[in-house]
């Protein structure tokens, strides 16, 4: 069914399709509309879920963990400080191998209080064992949320999945949305290690130095295996519903000399910039990174790479740039842009390419930096 929706409402619509038995969530700008819409669906009876209005994000994730381990489907949503507040529990959820799905509306971190888009919140969760996907349109937010449940609950994965959408730029953006009937695309949740009082087991108790690393390795093995599951899920989604996704969303990359790599809505701006640059005779392409974890093998051989980071690791650099430099020998021009919602147009992105200085880092908008 076609309608007009915000990114937030699209996530809630997706959740309505897959009917988690328990949703535990806490409001935070700019995520609030997701939980309001889910509460509305539950209240009107359109969604047969239990909605736990917890008193904090730490408790939101703890409640999802407690619910998920009984073998049922769970969902939560957060942003920024909410995500950081649940950091202890995001580690627990992944280590406990629970297929929790969470929408994170990417927002800057304080101080000062800044509610606008930035990716540093989710990137500080990079090493927790969560799968992370970044979306760029309202439709993609919807589709990725639905697929996230199938991927997380796949018995070769059993790891939580975080769907990231840019605060305001996508969460509050109105775009066309084509909703689907999911049917058996997301099969019923089956958790092999669900709590069973008839077969009592201890969960997450004392684990010695002779065992803990085995559990970590098992997580790593599963997140590697998840790449296959993601591919298979996206292929099946395309077959059933006609929309195609991949680890990256490539635009004019094949013959490009210079490739722009970015995540989220910036990755879409980059496509417009590519058109501009091509008119000027610069053979540019755009590779919008969708999945950060598991990190895909990027085909950048022989290209100049302009990486735009809406995030930063102090004392080291743009996080995406670091990830890419660790994988490829090609030269990278690292642009730090869009922090705390700083406005960037496709013209600015085109400028990054025109004025690129390979091997260097550039903070957009900072005086004497160019």
């Amino acid at each position, binding site marked *: 069914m076609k309608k007009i929706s915000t990114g937030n409402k699209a996530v809630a619509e997706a959740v309505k399709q897959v009917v988690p038995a328990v949703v535990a969530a806490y409001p935070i700008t700019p995520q609030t509309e997701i939980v309001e819409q889910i509460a509305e669906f539950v209240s009107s009876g359109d969604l047969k879920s*239990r909605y736990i209005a917890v008193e904090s994000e730490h408790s939101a994730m703890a409640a999802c963990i407690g*619910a998920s381990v009984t073998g049922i489907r769970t969902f939560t949503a957060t942003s920024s400080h909410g995500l950081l507040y649940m950091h202890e529990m995001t580690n627990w959820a992944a280590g406990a191998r629970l297929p929790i799905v969470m929408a994170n509306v990417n927002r800057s971190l304080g101080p000062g209080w800044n509610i606008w888009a930035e990716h540093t919140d989710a990137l500080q969760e990079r090493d927790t064992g969560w799968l992370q996907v970044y979306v760029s349109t309202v439709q993609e937010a919807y589709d990725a949320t639905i697929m996230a449940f199938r991927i997380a609950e796949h018995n070769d994965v059993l790891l939580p999945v975080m769907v990231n959408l840019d605060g305001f730029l996508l969460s509050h953006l109105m775009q066309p949305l084509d909703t689907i009937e999911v049917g058996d695309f997301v099969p019923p949740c089956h958790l092999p290690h669900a709590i069973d009082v008839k077969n009592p087991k201890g969960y997450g108790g004392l684990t010695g130095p002779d065992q803990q690393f085995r559990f970590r390795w098992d997580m790593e093995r599963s997140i590697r295996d998840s790449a296959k599951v993601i591919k298979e899920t996206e292929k099946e989604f395309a077959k059933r519903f006609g929309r195609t996704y991949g680890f990256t969303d490539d635009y004019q990359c094949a013959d490009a000399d210079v490739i722009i790599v970015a995540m989220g809505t910036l990755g879409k701006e980059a496509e417009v910039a590519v058109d501009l640059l091509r008119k000027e005779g610069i053979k540019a392409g755009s590779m919008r990174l969708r999945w950060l974890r598991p990190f895909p093998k990027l085909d950048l051989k022989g290209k100049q790479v302009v990486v735009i980071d809406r995030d930063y690791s102090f004392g080291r650099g743009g996080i995406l740039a670091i990830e890419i430099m660790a994988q490829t020998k090609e030269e990278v021009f690292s642009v730090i842009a869009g922090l705390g919602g700083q406005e960037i147009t496709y013209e600015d992105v085109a400028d990054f390419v025109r004025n690129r200085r390979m091997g260097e880092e550039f903070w957009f908008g900072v005086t004497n930096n160019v």
Partner: protein
Amino acid sequence: MINNDRSLIATERSLIVHHHLQELDTIPEIPKEEFILKCTSACAGCSDSLALRYVLKAAGPDTVLVVPACCTSVIQGIYPNTAFNVPVYNIAFASAAACASGMSNAFRAAGKKTNVIAYAGDGGTLDIGIQAMSGAFERGTDFLYICYDNEAYGNTGMQRSGGTPLGARTTTTPSGKTDNKKDIDAIIAAHDPPYQATACAAYPQDLFKKVTKALTFRGPTFIHILAPCPPGWRYSTEKSVEMGKLAVKSGMWVLYEREYGKLTIGAQSKAAIKKPIPLEEYLAPQGRFKGIDPKTVEILKQRIAKNLAKLTAEEAAS
């Protein structure tokens, strides 16, 4: 070497428990079925394991324990073994109530009546876990929250908690605590749960009855168990039951139930109100109160008297 030590501890403890059991074997309503198996890694004389033994006997096999960081996360054993014969979900320190809240909702959504018991220490309840607990009670979560209170952070080696009484020495209050014990029961009462009670590991029959009763209510219920701790309170290991009884007899610990707001003080505490033993009899055997300032003892006595008067008045009024 480690194994030898452990078996010694286990033997010593089983003797204490056995001695205690002879009395209880004559009480028909307490099931013989054990949910705490042999060879836990608890300290000798641990009254947490004693209390939990009767909690689980009352709750039965259709029960899940949610345990945050505390002594109970340690004593259940090391992977791949566990000494507990019900499912135990271990969770981070601050989140027992929140985790149990999610679990209870999930079970109820699936039409299951499984008991969900959050079983946390005083640190995990009065301090770091209080926000999640308050939230779970406010939301009317269908679960039983048990705080077993050994009045300090036990498994990290006895640091001060909100549950540590005035004057007690801990590793972070080497000259004795200068602040009063937090009244968590009053905080719980402010949430107006259908049922709350205090208990003591030294009175397992009373504890058994209270757990059995708590699990008949729908909604959040709370039991606060005083759990004397030999290494923490610094008394000899065979005296755990005696220490619990002295706590009640001196009025330092009061046994009561509050059912839909109606308070009933237990018979043991009624006797203590009528004719309490001197507080010094409770303090003297405990190394943690060694050298306590007489002025501090006076303040403790005044606080006991005030608390007993308050509870007596509340019982009379209800």
